[in-house]
C-alpha cells in the first residue's frame, strides 16, 4: 500500500464546517477520514452508490449485542454484496471506551469476521460531530445522489438483549430496500439507541 505522508498528518479533515445540522432529505455533508488500513475515504467519492454509516464502540453493550449475535456482520455482508458502501466510524477519543488504534481495529474486524467496506478512525470526533452522532450504534444511510435518507437506530428494539434482534424491525435494511425499490423510506428517522458516543470531554 502506498502512503502519502500528507494524509497521515490529517487523519480527519472535515470539508464542511460544523454547525451544519444533518437532516434527512438534505445532502449528506461530505467528510474525509482515514481508515484502519491508512487509506483515506471521502463520502463524495461514493457518489452513485448507497452508503451506510455505522457509529461503533466495541466496548459498548449495545454494539456488542449486534456483533456477538452476528447481526451487524450479516448486514454488512448482505448489503456490501449488493454494492452498498458500509463505513464503520469510530469516534471514541483516546483514553475513552471504544478507542482503538488501526492495528486493534484490524484485529477486531478479523476476529469478529466483520466486513465493512472500511473502518474509519475519527478520534477527534470530527465526523461524529458533523453528523451529530449520538449513540453506538447510530446509523445513517445516504442514497446514490448523496442525499441522507435515514438517520437513527439500527432497529426498533432499544435493548441490549440479543433475543430481541429477530423480532425487531431493522430500519437500515428497510431504508435500503425501500429506496432501491423506488419507494419513499417508510421510517426515515428514529431515536438512535445505545451508549453515548465517547467524544473527548
Amino acid at each position: 500500500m502506498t502512503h502519502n505522508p500528507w494524509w497521515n498528518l490529517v487523519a480527519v479533515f472535515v470539508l464542511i464546517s460544523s454547525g451544519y445540522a444533518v437532516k434527512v432529505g438534505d445532502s449528506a455533508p461530505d467528510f474525509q477520514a482515514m481508515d484502519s488500513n491508512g487509506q483515506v475515504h471521502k463520502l463524495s467519492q461514493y457518489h452513485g452508490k448507497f452508503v451506510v454509516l455505522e457509529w461503533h464502540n466495541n466496548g459498548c453493550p449495545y454494539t456488542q449485542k449486534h456483533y456477538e449475535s452476528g447481526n451487524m456482520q450479516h448486514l454488512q455482508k448482505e448489503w456490501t454484496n449488493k454494492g452498498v458502501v458500509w463505513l464503520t466510524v469510530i469516534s471514541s477519543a483516546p483514553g475513552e471506551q471504544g478507542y482503538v488504534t488501526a492495528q486493534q481495529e484490524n484485529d477486531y474486524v478479523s476476529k469478529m469476521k466483520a466486513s465493512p467496506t472500511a473502518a474509519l478512525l475519527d478520534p477527534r470526533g470530527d465526523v461524529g460531530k458533523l453528523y451529530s452522532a449520538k449513540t453506538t450504534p447510530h446509523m445513517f444511510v445516504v442514497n446514490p445522489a448523496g442525499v441522507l435518507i435515514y438517520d437513527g437506530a439500527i432497529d426498533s428494539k432499544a435493548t441490549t438483549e440479543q433475543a430481541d434482534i429477530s423480532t425487531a424491525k431493522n430500519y437500515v435494511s428497510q431504508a435500503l430496500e425501500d429506496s432501491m425499490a423506488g419507494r419513499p423510506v417508510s421510517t426515515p428517522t428514529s431515536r438512535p439507541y445505545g451508549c453515548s458516543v465517547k467524544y473527548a470531554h
Partner: protein
Amino acid sequence: MLPTAASCQGKAEEHTTLSLISERDAIVRGRQLWIGIRFDLQDGWHTYWTNPGDSGEPPRIEWQLPTGFQVSDIQWPHPERLALASLADYGYEDQVLLMAAVRPPERLKEGESTKITAQVHYLVCHDVCIPGQKHLELSLSVQTSAAFSPARPLFDAARQKLPRTMPRNWKISAISAGDEFVVNLKADKLVKPVQFFPLHSEQIENAAPQVATAVPGGLRLHLKKSEHLRRPIARLEGVIVLASGKAYKVRIPVAQPRNAHTQSKN
C-alpha cells in the same frame, strides 16, 4: 473471545443495589398497596427515566403476581438532566424508587402468604454502560389490617418527586416559531423553571440550553426543536420542574405560526 465491557467494568450489580420494597407490612384484601423497586447507585453512576434522552435505556420491570392481583404502571419520579459531552440524558443518580400500586382482589384467605416477584432489566452508566438483570421477590401475608413498614419514608420521599397536576388557574401553551418552541406559562405567582423534560423523544433537542425568561404573570421558556422533528406536533408532553423543586405534568398545546397555515392551504 474479545474482552467485553462487562469483563473490564465488572457487573452492573457492583454499581447499584436493587431491592423490592413495600410501603406496608401486609396485604389487606381489596386495598391498594404501594410497592417499588429501589436503586441505590454508586457515586457517579446513573440509570434512566422513561425517556432516557440522547442515549441509554429506561429500566423495564416484569411483575409476577398471584391470580387476581393487578399492578399499575411505574410512577416515574422527575429525572435529572445528565449532561454528557454534546448530549443530554434524563435519569437518576444516587438513588431512586420506582413505585407501582398493587390492587389485591377482594377474596383472599387471611394469613396466606403472597409472593410478588419482579424481573428488572436495567442499564447503569458512568462513562461506560453496563446492562443488568435482577430477580427480586417480596413475601407478604394477608391480614385484616396493615401497618407501615420501615420503608415508608422512602415512599414519602419518592412521592415528593412525582410530577403533580398543574394548579387549575395556571395556563400553559406554546407556539412553534422557526427552530424553537416558545412555551408560555401563566401562573398565579412568580415561578422560576429549572427544566422541561419531554416525555417523547425526538421532539426537542435534549442537549440544547433551555432559556427561560420571567414575564409578567409567568414565564417564557425557549426549547429548541429536534432535528428529527419532521412534521408539526399538536402538543408537547412532559414534566416541568420549577426552582422550588416541584414537578408538574404538562400537556402543552402547540400553535402553529399563521404563515404555516397559509402555506398549507396553498
